């Protein structure tokens, strides 16, 4: 009897641990979602979270071919969409580059020891010049643009 109780309690503890292990990373990730962005109001990203974790690179790879060769823009798997929703800001509302080791993309890539090359070329912060090309979405992009522009004028290499 005592053995059965012990076993049951062990199983219960194990289950609780398993659940906690699931929720902790989820809480970590939540921290990187911009308040007021489209992502903040959604249950999961453009695909279910599990699929995004495993297959996001496939999605953006297909998207890049469609965009560069066929000119298809503004679709849900675009890289600029990742940046728009998952960027974070410091106290002065200046965006932190998303590939930094403590940011949304950079943190996970550093943990998984996978090189992240996207942002060698792509903008790591929402950086729109002139009339905003990504129209029709209530993103903080427009708010960010002036601060980025001013940094640019300072000649921030």
């Amino acid at each position, binding site marked *: 009897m005592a053995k059965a109780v012990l076993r049951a309690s062990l199983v219960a503890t194990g289950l609780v641990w398993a659940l906690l292990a699931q929720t902790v990373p989820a809480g970590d990730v939540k921290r990187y979602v911009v308040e007021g962005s489209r992502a903040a109001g959604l249950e999961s990203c453009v695909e279910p979270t599990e699929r995004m974790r495993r297959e996001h690179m496939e999605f953006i790879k297909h998207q890049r071919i469609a965009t560069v060769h*066929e*000119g298809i823009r*503004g679709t849900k798997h675009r890289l600029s969409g990742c940046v728009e929703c998952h960027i974070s800001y410091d106290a002065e509302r200046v965006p932190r580059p998303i590939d930094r080791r403590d940011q949304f993309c950079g943190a996970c890539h550093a943990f998984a020891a996978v090189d992240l090359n996207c942002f060698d*070329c792509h*903008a790591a912060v929402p*950086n729109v010049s002139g*009339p905003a090309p990504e129209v029709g979405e209530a993103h903080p992009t427009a708010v960010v643009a002036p601060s980025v522009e001013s940094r640019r004028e300072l*000649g921030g290499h």
Partner: protein
Amino acid sequence: MKDENQVTHEGVDPERRAFMGVAAGVTAAMVAPGVILHAVAAVPRSEPVTSDVRWGLLIETSKCVDGCSACVDACDQENGLDLQAKHAQESLENWEHQKAVWIRKVKLQDNQTGRVTNLPLMCQHCEHPPCVDVCPTGASFKRADGIVMVDRHTCIGCRYCMMACPYKARSFIHQESHGQLTSVPRGKGCVESCNLCVHRRDHGQESTACVDACAEAGHEAILFGDLKDPASPIRKRLEDIPNRQIREDLALNTGVRYAGV
């Protein structure tokens, strides 16, 4: 003589008429948003580009002013080329030689007569581009709408295309880039050149940065448009005034045409 149509008009079925009315209404309701969407445009492109259009430029050199660099500056601003900076140790000569430029202002002088001609020279968007012929990875390609560009994901930076281009239109990025624009990703180790403001094309905007800047400076020396549309302003102007391709002996059928050279 009796009109045969009279017979059919007499037996109108009210139920059938009502059904037709509803059907027409539903069809209109479903089609109309699409039509209106196309009329208003300016939404990002969702269908692949087709060869129904071919984008091109017409440059009227008589209107191009000596000393003006409005088009070059606008291009630099639009595509983030102004974010490039000279290394401290690098010589000015080396920097001028190696920095990326998409438009070059060229000054021609006829030594016999002394006549001076100014013109902007950029990628000529050939129908048969030599850069595409020589590219070993397929990174240099021609889009269906005639824009010649580089897929930076597959470019290995061999610079064969730079050697092949008769117009010296391409640049190599020698240094790491920072602060890139969302609409123009660019980075070290790739070749790049004018892409007729491809991000503007895909968002349904009307012209290119250089064309806007030239008009704003009051010169209107550059005209942008669809070379395949007989009603487009560029086609009409091409019909009206004498114009030619640079190095037409190479039979590349360029998309950028020049008047007055």
